């Protein structure tokens, strides 16, 4: 009868056991281990790509209307997550990272949810002037985009809405408090027909596939219902032909 392990067994008796001293000392997982999700709400642009690619549907998005805007909360349910890191791969902004933390044990499954909230300010309406204006021209001097033109003699006040970025400096500087932003209307993507070259990069990059571009027909269409105003098309357009603003 052969006993091949006898020598090993006896020599193991006199050597140190190879057990890691786990709960007493913490053991780190190796780098690139896909553990607990960490979500940075500040980097998130609410494109929703992660929700689309998550195969166990572990990510939910909750909208909550508050004064001045909306609270957008993303919840990552770790009891449903399969830790594939596809959401991390698809997030351009780097808002989702899978850390090396593997200590995910809880008595109540509600403790195993990672969430983050971002406050999205509503885009204010168009800049408008009231009758209190004395045409002093301070607003025009302080506008960083030089969007305002004031003529003291002709007593006119004009603003070029395409240049205005709604920074609010003119409202601060006006001595008569004559300036304010109007009612904010529905937001969406505004398309500048003159600048557009129909390259269709915006259509390819849109995570919800809202944009359809036809190069031959030279047409550009957007499905406003699916658009979440994430801003990826605005960023990727090579001709700056798109911007997010109040729709007419």
């Amino acid at each position: 009868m052969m006993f091949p392990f006898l020598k090993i067994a006896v020599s193991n008796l006199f050597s140190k056991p190879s057990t890691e001293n786990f709960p007493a000392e913490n053991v780190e997982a190796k780098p690139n281990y896909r553990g607990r999700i960490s979500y940075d709400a500040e980097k998130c642009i609410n494109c929703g790509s992660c929700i689309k690619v998550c195969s166990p549907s572990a990510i939910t998005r909750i909208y909550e209307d508050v004064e001045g805007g909306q609270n957008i909360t993303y919840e990552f349910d770790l009891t449903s997550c399969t830790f594939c890191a596809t959401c991390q791969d698809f997030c351009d902004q780097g808002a989702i990272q899978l850390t090396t933390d593997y200590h995910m044990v809880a008595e109540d499954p509600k403790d195993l949810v990672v969430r983050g909230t971002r406050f999205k300010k509503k885009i204010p309406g168009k800049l408008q002037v009231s009758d209190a204006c004395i045409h002093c021209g301070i607003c025009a001097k302080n506008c960083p985009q030089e969007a305002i033109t004031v003529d003291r003699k002709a007593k006119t006040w004009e603003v070029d809405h395409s240049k205005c970025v709604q920074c609010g400096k003119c409202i601060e500087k006006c001595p008569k408090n004559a300036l304010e932003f109007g009612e904010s209307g529905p937001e969406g993507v505004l398309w500048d027909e003159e600048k557009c070259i129909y390259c269709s990069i915006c259509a390819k990059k849109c995570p919800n596939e809202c944009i359809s571009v036809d190069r031959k027909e030279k047409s550009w269409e957007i499905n406003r219902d699916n658009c979440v105003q994430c801003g990826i098309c605005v960023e990727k357009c090579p001709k700056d032909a798109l911007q997010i603003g109040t729709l007419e």
Partner: protein
Amino acid sequence: MFNKLIAKSTGKSPWIFHVNTGSCNGCDIELVAALTPRYDAERFGFKLAGTPRHADIVVVSGPITSQSKDRLIRTLEQVPEPKCVVTLGSCPQSGNVFKGSYSVEAPLEKFVHVDVAIAGCTPKPEAVIEGLYKAAEILQRKREAMKK
């Protein structure tokens, strides 16, 4: 006098029975790996029992398939008190990628109260040991509450 000794011993010698209700076997491999020399769960007294009648902690893995649901409930009823139910991985908690399927009946909370949830797909053996350790503490508390 013996009650204190028995309660202390209950926390120091928890025997595990493992039920696989349709799992992909990833979590099962990590559970058995926790008993290998590198992670050695046996230092805390954990031992795999062969029958549910000998077990204290029942570890369930796998989304509860319709075919295994009745058998699982019957097995859980055979475990003597005090007992703890531990879910291993994300399948028994929510069905993971099998959610919404016609033959999957996760979450386990619908059928029996789950004491400890170990999340991960699959959890690392160290996380498994952490979860089982917590379950052993809960078991000791249950035993102390039983005899009051």
